């Protein structure tokens, strides 16, 4: 791979060979598309990412955002890049042509967004948030609201945000204090303070539309009493032109570890009681409505973990091939021992394969989830099954991809050694930019509670049973292939342990040990993610094995190890498919083999972390 952002061969493999996304093109929803179109769109996305977004990566970080006289200024380079991005039609590419999109399948969009985010995640958040906020209005707004707000958001004229968090309401959104007071004309007067609002202010778009969660005076406490309001930064006149400031003021911006190019703002609404909001949807439906944006945002955050993993890995491999250091340990004593490129050192190779296998697994998992959304949309008859996958996998995509993303970015620095820690190379920024993904959109701790507390039991357990069915099918297929038997056995053992653990958690949940699932939720999510990744990798290995067999046959290499070795060097497909089998095998021995003992440990009902006195932490 030459672009160092993503391995486009692996992208195409997952899209066309593993998921078989061409199936979508035969449905009425997507019959406007062909594989050629998809390839062309991917290649244009790569151009946009490389030529337009990537140049904002370093200066976006070093210059960062500034706050002056109440206004926020984003990195200068973002302005031109944003214009080109919008002109390219990327922001709402997956939306329907009726609202100005191109209706491209979500899974294809996901692949494009992976490449774009790999070029600069913090830039990518601006169109991402605008798209998400616009989508809320598209789904829940009145015709008038769509005309007034959505159209100008979707065409890039105005920006969008999501305003949930307050100082006293982070993970617990229901504790929010922002208030909406009814006005005689049916609009609401909004007061309150929101913090940590991404791109809450910026100088790229002429207006900013804030979807704001607030409680109408007199409504009950908790999430059930929350409504959602459309609050523009500037009021909008009847003729669509901009009016005065809507009493929305930026208090300050945060100085933070990463994503320096994405402003993180404190927004004060209604300091002078002049902030007007319009209700979106029904009263007290605020959480339900916002969840549409939150679910999409959670998948986007998972994608951020994936994107950064991808570019961190591509950089690490490329560096490891170039950097010459140390002779091979077993040759060191010889007089002729020469230093080698570090990719030759076993420890570096292991790190790289650790990164590669996790990366490919989370890529497949995120793409699969997007594909499930397409299938749900395109096949009304199978909607429940596919939508079930989306519900189940959303917290896993978010938390697992960002957790492993951190590990992968960290390992990339290890591969670079001291250079990786320094700003001369981009990998330190990948790590800094990645960390936020484990935190926002609901911390990974909250994601694991969502998985264990809600998603497993959802749809009477059918969603998880369907997923288990997919994994079982992969194991059965792999067992029929001689060279994958051991790997299949390892996935099977891990899978059986996971199934047992899942049943056990359901029992604990009903008994007096109900704390066990809550206490071990993030371990469970981690194990679940591992088994899913093992499944996607083995599924890929099955395909790779079949393709390799055909190529070997074509080249008369079935029986000859030497010929196979020669082919790996001369034939890119052979190298690629062999690498897929290696990813699956490495992951199986490195990770899947640890799953069973981890499951046993949870089932042992050890509760020390829960029971130990607070005092013991501090004295």
């Amino acid at each position: 791979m030459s672009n160092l952002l993503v391995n486009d061969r692996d992208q195409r493999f997952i899209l066309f060979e593993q998921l078989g996304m061409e199936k979508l093109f035969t449905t009425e929803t997507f019959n406007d598309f062909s594989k050629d179109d998809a390839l062309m769109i991917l290649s244009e996305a790569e151009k946009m990412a490389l030529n337009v977004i990537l140049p904002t990566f370093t200066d976006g970080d070093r210059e960062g955002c500034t706050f002056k006289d109440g206004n926020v200024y984003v990195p200068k380079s973002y302005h031109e890049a944003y214009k080109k991005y919008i002109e390219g039609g990327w922001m709402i590419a997956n939306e329907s042509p009726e609202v100005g999109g191109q209706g491209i399948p979500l899974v294809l969009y996901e692949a494009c967004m992976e490449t774009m985010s790999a070029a600069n995640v913090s830039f990518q958040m601006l169109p991402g948030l605008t798209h998400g906020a616009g989508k809320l209005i598209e789904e829940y707004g009145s015709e008038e609201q769509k005309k007034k707000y959505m159209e100008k958001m979707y065409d890039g004229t105005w920006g969008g945000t999501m305003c949930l968090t307050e100082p006293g309401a982070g993970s617990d959104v229901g504790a929010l204090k922002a208030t909406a007071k009814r006005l005689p004309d049916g609009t609401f007067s909004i007061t309150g303070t929101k913090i940590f609002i991404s791109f809450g202010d910026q100088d790229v778009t002429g207006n900013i539309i804030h979807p704001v969660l607030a409680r109408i005076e007199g409504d009950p406490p908790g999430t059930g009493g929350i409504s959602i309001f459309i609050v523009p930064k500037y009021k909008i006149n009847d003729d669509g032109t901009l009016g005065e400031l809507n009493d929305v003021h930026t208090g300050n911006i945060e100085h933070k570890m990463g994503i320096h190019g994405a402003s993180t703002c404190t927004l004060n609404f209604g300091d002078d009681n002049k902030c007007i909001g319009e209700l979106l949807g029904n009263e007290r439906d605020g959480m339900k409505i916002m969840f549409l944006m939150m679910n999409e945002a959670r998948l986007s955050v998972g994608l951020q973990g994936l994107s950064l993993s991808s570019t961190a890995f591509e950089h690490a491999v490329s560096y490891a091939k170039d950097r010459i250091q140390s002779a091979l340990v077993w040759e060191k004593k010889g007089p002729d021992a020469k230093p080698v490129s570090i990719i030759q050192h076993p420890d570096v190779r292991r790190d790289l394969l650790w990164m590669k296998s996790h990366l490919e697994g989370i890529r497949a998992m995120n793409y699969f989830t997007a594909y499930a959304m397409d299938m749900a949309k395109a096949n009304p008859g199978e909607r429940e099954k596919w939508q079930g996958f989306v519900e189940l996998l959303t917290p896993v995509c978010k938390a697992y991809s960002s957790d492993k993303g951190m590990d992968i970015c960290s390992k990339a620095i290890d591969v670079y050694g001291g250079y990786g820690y320094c700003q001369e190379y981009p990998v330190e920024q990948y790590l800094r930019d990645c960390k936020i993904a484990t935190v926002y959109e609901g911390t990974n701790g909250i994601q694991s509670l969502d998985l264990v507390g809600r998603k497993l039991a959802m749809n009477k357990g059918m969603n998880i049973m369907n997923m288990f069915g997919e994994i079982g099918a992969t194991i059965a297929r792999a067992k029929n292939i001689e060279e994958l038997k051991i790997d299949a056995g390892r996935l099977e053992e891990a899978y059986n342990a996971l199934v047992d653990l899942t049943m056990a958690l359901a029992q604990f949940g009903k008994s007096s040990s109900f704390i066990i699932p809550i206490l071990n939720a993030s371990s469970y999510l981690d194990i679940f993610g591992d088994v899913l990744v093992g499944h996607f990798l083995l599924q890929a290995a099955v395909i790779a094995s079949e393709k390799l067999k055909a190529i070997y046959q074509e080249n008369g290499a079935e029986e000859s190890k030497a010929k196979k070795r020669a082919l790996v060097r001369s034939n890119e497909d052979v190298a690629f498919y062999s690498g897929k089998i290696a990813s699956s095998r490495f992951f199986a021995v490195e990770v899947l083999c640890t799953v069973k003992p981890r499951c046993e440990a949870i089932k042992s009902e050890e509760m020390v972390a829960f029971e130990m006195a607070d005092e013991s932490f501090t004295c």
Partner: protein
Amino acid sequence: MNIVACVKQVPDTEAQIRVKADGSGIEEGGIKWVMNPYDEYGVEEALRLKEKNGGEVTVISVGPARVMETIRTALAMGADKGIHVQDAAFDGADAYTTAAALAAALKDLNPDIIFCGQRAIDDDQGQVGAVLADLLDIPHVSLITKLEFADGAIKVIRPIEGAQLLIEAKLPCLVTAQKGLNEPRYASLPGIMKAKKKPVDVKDAAALGVTPAVNMKVVKFVPPPARAAGKIVCGDDPAAKAKELARLLREEAKVI
């Protein structure tokens, strides 16, 4: 105005080129194909000319089936229609044959202006534009970096060493595009979707009435020799090292 942009599909500049074992060509598997970068300038200028003065942009390319991708890229950028000259007889064609095919395909179109890239980055010959102009019997200006159109004529800038030429030409004529002419736009997603409905005419040698002639044949492809390893002058004494360096530059590298 009838505007034509000629485009060639070439391996991506980043592609790792491998020569086939028998030297008959390059390994095409795994290669990413792109529009020749100089042709992109041509397409962009053609589109700008149309946007200012009206008319229609036709893109044309000679090559195998995969070339359709490049034609579609130009259509997605905004060109109106395409012509794909596809015939196995033209595979590996020399510059003259390619130009003859283009000329035959464009003859009836009566183009007012034709854009070519100043050369293709794969075989680096830079001949097709000039030959095509000659076959169509129209003037040609090469290596332009600026173009203005008014009153049926163009004024173009062509840089030469240490200066620039300002050249005027009456239409119809052919120009070849040099880096600096413009910044080519990206194909937008709406553009890609619209391009699907734009017509592309596929023509073979018989339809064009061209008999591919072999005036020039590539005998063999050979990879460039691998770069020899560098030499590091070692030692503790800077003066001795400098002396050794000078000796090596003189006696071995023969550059001073």
